[in-house]
């Protein structure tokens, strides 16, 4: 069984890029993605564990990234709500909807954090609906609704017809 230091190195070297890509889709910025991965690694490896197997660790890190990101966005939103005169309410710049090939990450940022998480988990991670629901601590119906809303918004931005 590797030590946590060895496991950290193996995970970062072997799966670091994949984790960063996942984080990038969640938060929309390379720098934020690196920070997200780093924070998740710290959270996961700071806890005592009996199993330092890489697949399990990666799953822990991805879950930590998702929850940390959702927590952060919720916290930021609350802060923005109580500071309307100082802060911009928008979390990110608006996408240029008139541009047919608008940047997909920018479009993702137009979604709510949970819609975005559903899109990333479903379309990028290929997670089943039930698993997404478990990760987000909600029902499958809620996940379907988030995905449907996200599809409509993305489709509108892409000028494509969204079905289902």
């Amino acid at each position: 069984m590797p030590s946590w230091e060895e496991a950290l190195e193996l995970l970062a070297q072997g799966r670091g890029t994949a984790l960063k890509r996942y984080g990038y889709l969640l938060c929309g910025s390379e720098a934020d993605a690196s920070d997200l991965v780093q924070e998740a690694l710290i959270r996961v490896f700071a806890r005592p564990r009996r199993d330092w197997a890489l697949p399990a660790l990666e799953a822990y890190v991805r879950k930590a990234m998702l929850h940390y990101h959702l927590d952060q966005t919720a916290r930021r939103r609350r802060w923005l709500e109580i500071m309307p005169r100082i802060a911009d309410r928008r979390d990110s710049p608006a996408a240029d909807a008139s541009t047919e090939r608008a940047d997909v990450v920018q479009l993702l940022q137009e979604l709510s954090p949970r819609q975005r998480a559903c899109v990333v988990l479903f379309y990028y991670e290929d997670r089943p609906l039930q698993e997404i629901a478990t990760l987000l601590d909600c029902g499958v119906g809620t996940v379907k609704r988030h995905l449907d809303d996200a599809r409509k918004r993305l489709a509108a931005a892409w000028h494509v017809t969204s079905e289902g």
Partner: protein
Amino acid sequence: MDTGEEQIRRGVTDAAHHIGPLDISLQAVAGKIRNRRRLLGGTAASFGIILIGSAAWGAAIMFSPAAAPNVRPAGQETTPSGIPFPHQARSYACGNPIQPPVAHETGNDALDFRVTSPRRTPSGAPEITVTLTARKAASIPVPLTPTAPRILLLKDGKIVAGQDSNTAPSPGVPTPTFSGTQLGVAHALRLAPGEHYSVTVTLPADAVCDGHSWSELWSPGEKTTLAVIASDRALGRTHPLDPHALNPDPLVVQEQPLQNVPAP
């Protein structure tokens, strides 16, 4: 799959694959992890001490009239601060010893841990007060529902008296007092330097094992050890203690003679 879904899937995949490799300093991350693990370990030590009233203790406080024996097994894994890792399920039946490993500890950088001399109550059972004093500003988690700790008396290294905090906390209900600031609803206490948190516990009168008596254990010359034992659930652990697990709870030990100190 419709065109929209294909476009979304392709879009997110393409976007993600334009991202370069992870650019973080593993050394810095490992350093932060060590700090946080050390912090958790330090919290564990203080937590175990503080949670005398909890059903979940990870610390043992031992009093011995004899010179402190080195109870730290050779080759034992240690934390960065040198505290051994006691990570095993323990049994506390009458006549059995406390299973090693145990460690000597009087607190950490932030907290000073003191057990005031036990006082003999009218029933003969000892009353013990444990006090944690902040060396610097500290935030201490405390249980929502304090219960008595598991306190054991040992003679010749074997258990001769004690109570099981997990099943029979009464009547040794701890009475925590503190001079710091209570945070939230008793989830945590914030102590400024010099402020303290203390818990007083009294063993039940019938907590002595068959074949022994309180008078015998208090007799001058008797080498009696008092131990306060904790499980690890206070730290949120849900699996059994494992001697090979990483980052286990420290087992705190403090030795001093079991001598009656009359109440002021």
